[in-house]
């Protein structure tokens, strides 16, 4: 796999465009530093030749002073160009990070299930950071170095065409060899980074499961797998590491070759009396000066390997497209919406249907209770309704509009989904509740917290809404976390709410506590409640019983209750048995 220049350029164009002015300043600074670097060897030649002539020391001293002055100015220019290039580098890669984050969030849930957060972290920051050096230094220095080489060669041609020819041959051969070595190294770097992403994915998973691992006494198992990872990792790292050194070795050989050429031609021309000893030194000095850009190009090529591997993988990420396509129709609803599901069919994997031929209809403001065994497809149905997945077959209509035609933004605005697993951020209570929406006022948040009955919890927070919550949920009971998820819904005022086993971890008291609040909320919405407990669906107008992904029963709750043979009334009896047993 060779990283094509085209991909680099495409990325560059996109992310550097906004910084045109700064780039021009940078170019000017770089040109200045090249010119300054080219002058100094000329001064040294003048110095040596004047000294050989035995002229007065006055010329020599002013030459030495000029040399020092030029060096000082050059350093100032270097600092200035570092500032500009770093500034542009951070601005552009931050933009890339943001785009990549947005893109990755928009990808399908199946993508997120198969990519661990630790792995994505490595992609979004690790890969982009190696691209950073590409943006901020690599490219500019590369141009700078090539310009310097070109300048030196030109000046050498002016000295004597044989010198110019000899050293430009050396440069061409040298860069060609290096160019050939580079792609081999990029490839092994790519697999090395891939491996390290897997490794850190594994570590992240173990770290977040310490509780389970410890109590299961599975510590040794973790270590065992760690050792297995090391064994797989080492040969890959050895290969990519050796490749990196191979580039260095090549450069040493190439450069010794350059020295030989310089000394050879210089010595030959001097023997013929064509040039002065000062000029021989000038050739030597310029060849040494070539050392620096080539030495740097070595580093830069090493970084280019890393950046190349990163570009490839960033492009891979960008190339993944969400199957969930943006719709055009906005969902403009002030009140509850109607829901219609027609012949819905869904499979996560081909030929493993999870939902089969589901058709139901729900009028605005009605409440649907969904019952079924674990694995019967309840959660999947919810996920389809919020468009986390696309149906394999069949249609869903919300407010009479085809789900896939609705703008995602307006869909998310009007449809709320409360899952059993409450996901928290390492952030303040406020940020956790508003999900970083700074437009929601504190008063609204506090009211919502009071609505779910968490007033005392709020009062006990040491810094109020600014109290930090950690993402492991330490200090929060599962029930409290669940209630916080309700607060999130309360802050949004949706037209359709899906509660997926939302009350499952609440004890009866707390359930009662929020029931009032839910009543208030449901007054103006359509709702689907997925529940295992009969009490949870008591408020439902309709009941849907799912079995192996099929509709086992769907109908009016009252009617089903009165029908002794209905599955629902059987379930009700089992619930009652549970009470009596």
């Amino acid at each position, binding site marked *: 796999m060779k990283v094509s220049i085209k991909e680099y350029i495409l990325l560059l164009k996109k992310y550097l465009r906004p910084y045109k002015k700064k780039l021009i300043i940078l170019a000017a600074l770089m040109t200045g530093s090249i010119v300054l670097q080219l002058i100094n060897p000329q001064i040294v030649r003048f110095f040596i030749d004047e000294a050989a002539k035995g002229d007065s020391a006055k010329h020599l001293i002013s030459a030495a002073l000029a040399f020092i002055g030029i060096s000082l100015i050059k350093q100032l220019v270097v600092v200035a160009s570092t500032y500009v290039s770093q500034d542009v580098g951070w601005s552009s890669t931050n933009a890339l990070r943001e785009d990549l984050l947005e893109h990755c969030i928009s990808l399908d849930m199946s993508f997120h299930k198969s990519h661990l957060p630790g792995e994505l972290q490595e992609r979004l920051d690790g890969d982009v950071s190696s691209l950073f050096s590409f943006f901020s230094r690599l490219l500019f220095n590369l141009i700078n170095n090539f310009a310097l080489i070109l300048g030196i060669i030109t000046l050498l041609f002016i000295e004597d065409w044989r010198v110019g020819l000899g050293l430009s041959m050396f440069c061409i051969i040298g860069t060609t060899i290096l160019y050939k070595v580079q792609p081999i190294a990029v490839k092994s770097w790519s697999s090395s980074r891939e491996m390290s992403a897997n490794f850190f994915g594994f570590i992240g998973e173990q770290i977040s499961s310490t509780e389970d691992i410890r109590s299961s006494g599975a*510590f040794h198992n973790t270590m065992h797998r760690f050792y297995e990872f090391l064994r797989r990792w080492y040969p890959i790292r050895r290969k990519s590491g050796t490749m990196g050194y191979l580039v260095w070795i090549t450069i040493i050989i190439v450069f010794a070759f350059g020295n030989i050429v310089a000394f050879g031609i210089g010595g030959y021309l001097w023997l013929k009396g064509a040039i002065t000893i000062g000029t021989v030194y000038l050739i030597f000095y310029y060849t040494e000066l070539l050392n620096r850009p080539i030495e740097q190009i070595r580093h830069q090529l090493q970084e280019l390997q890393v950046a190349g591997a990163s570009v490839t993988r960033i492009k891979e990420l960008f190339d993944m497209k969400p199957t969930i396509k943006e719709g055009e129709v906005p969902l403009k609803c002030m009140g509850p919406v109607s829901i219609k599901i027609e012949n819905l069919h869904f499979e996560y994997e081909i030929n493993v249907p999870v939902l089969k031929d589901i058709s139901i209809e729900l009028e605005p403001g009605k409440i649907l209770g969904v019952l079924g065994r674990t694995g019967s497809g309840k959660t999947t149905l919810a996920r389809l309704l919020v468009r986390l997945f696309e149906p394999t077959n069949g249609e869903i209509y919300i407010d009479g509009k085809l789900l896939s035609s609705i703008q995602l933004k307006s869909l998310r605005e009007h449809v709320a989904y409360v899952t059993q697993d409450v996901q928290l951020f390492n952030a303040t209570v406020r940020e956790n509740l508003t999900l970083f929406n700074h437009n929601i006022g504190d008063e609204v948040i506090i009211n919502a917290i009071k609505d779910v009955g968490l007033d005392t919890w709020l009062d006990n927070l040491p810094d109020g809404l600014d109290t930090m919550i950690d993402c492991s949920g330490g200090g929060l009971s599962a029930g409290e976390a669940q209630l916080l998820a309700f607060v999130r819904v309360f802050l949004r005022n949706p037209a359709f709410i899906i509660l997926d086993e939302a009350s499952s971890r609440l004890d009866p008291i707390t359930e009662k506590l929020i029931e009032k609040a839910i009543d208030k909320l449901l007054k103006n919405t359509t709702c689907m409640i997925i529940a295992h407990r009969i009490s949870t669906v008591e408020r439902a107008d309709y009941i849907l019983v799912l079995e192996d992904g099929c509709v086992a029963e769907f109908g009016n709750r009252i009617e089903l209750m009165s029908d002794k043979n209905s599955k629902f009334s059987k379930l009700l009896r089992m619930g009652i048995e549970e009470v009596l047993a």
Partner: protein
Amino acid sequence: MQEIGKKKPLKLMWRMICYCPFLYFADCLVWILIFTSPLIPGLLAKKFFDILSENAVVDTNLWSILAMIAVVAISRAVLIYMGARIDIFFRFKQSSLIRRNLLEILMKRPGANPSKTSTGEILNSFRDDASQIEDAVDWIMDLLGNLIFAICAIAILMGIDAKITLLVFTPLALVIVIANKANGRVEKYRRDSRKATGAVNGIIGEIFSTVQAVKVSGAEEHIIKHFQSLNQKRHKLMLRDTLFTQMLESIYENTISLGTGLILLLVAQSMKNGSFSVGDFAVFVYYLGFVADFTQFFGKYIAHYQQTCISFQRIADLMEDTPIEEIVQHNPLYLKGQLPVIERIQLSEDDKFRELELKGLSYRYPATGGGISDISFNLKRGSFTVICGKIGSGKTTLIRAILGLLPVGSGEILWNGKRISDPSNHFVYPKSAYVAQVPRLMSETVRDNILLGIYEDDMDLNKAIYLAVMEKDIETLENGLETLVGSRGVKLSGGQIQRVAAARMFIRNSELMVLDDISSALDVNTESTLWNRIFELKEKTCLVVSNRKIALQYADHIIVMKDGSIEAQGTLAELLESCKEIQSIYV
């Protein structure tokens, strides 16, 4: 919190070197040769110009110099190849040792997640801090090689002209002093920028752990804005950091040009009268570059060392009370040969469970002040004890405090009458087993998730699956037990995950079984089946968090929690009469 300071990292790094001393010695030897080899081309250059300026036309000498340049380069290339192989191995061992020990320490530490650090930040330590330390150890030999080169070079130059050598190299020494003065600021800027980087990494990790919530609530826009503000902060701090470093670097670089200029000034006179040859000038300038590189590298290394101290500090913070020395403890990495066999732990007669007693157990969450206080109760072998109580009453906290998943607060835990000082290492398989409220699965097969390293033929996998009411689910899974599940249970529902964790507990056949609200994601049928199967188990002791009737009815002993303390305890019949709290739960 342990303070690492400036000197301790040196000791720790020395311990790391001692981990593989022979490898390090070989590595050093080769690399010192590599670093000192440029001495020869310098002398060859001198010779070349001397031949030219002496006008002694000895052609063959001139061409043999060219041949020698080639020989030196080729031998250097061979050395580098050898050095690369050794060095890569050495480096890999160094960072792997840190990672191995950190993993072990984090796994063995009480408590689930460190209270203040996100997984993203811990991963940062695994990734960046370990490589930082790896570099710090490895670069010692670069430093050594460069130093030897500098000493040799200065000795050679002193032989040519002692006065000029001193006049040129003294400013270089001054530069080191200047750089050292600036180190305090380098460290501060570095720390700030690292912190900002950690924040960016942390939020990325969290966003993807909570991606479903982000998506369904349409919070993308706000989250990205938040991410943007963290990015901008990092931009600013990083810019300050690199600019300052670049300025220091510029000072170093200037020493070469200044040095060359200085040489020019000093030799103006002697070159004119021929006592200082062009060859002398060539070797002076040639070595000057390398010696300046050394001073620059020395300064860089000091800065890197500062950063390494920060890395060690961050690791120490993660390790909490574990002494930092343990991070460099010499432990095998098993890169070759047989992997260690996981031995089945045998239970001693003494440890066989007879009785568990809690005396005044308390724990407070530092952040919220909530927690449990003064919990005392008894648990006998073969009993079924249920902890119930309202939301937030401290049920889960109690369980976690007993099992040592929270740091020890006050009070005593007695196992068979003996006080347990380290519950986190006591309440493990085969003494106890535990199913958390929200269990975690690994990205492995269902089988591996249940076994977690226990040999299948040791225990009855099918029985465990049966007890966990998993048998039908396994049948429907595409590859049965070999189905791969994700970190958050790719194709498994919440209830299935919980039952996989239950199977994991049952297969361990431990003395004491602890279940935290196992029924929370299960439907009625599955739940009652599960309870009934647990009830059928004989000789089993269970400690269960549940508010469910079926569990309360079966219980030998019920503990009612309220606001972090025991409101009442006894049998269901007793409590229904006397305790209001349970009346409101048992409805």
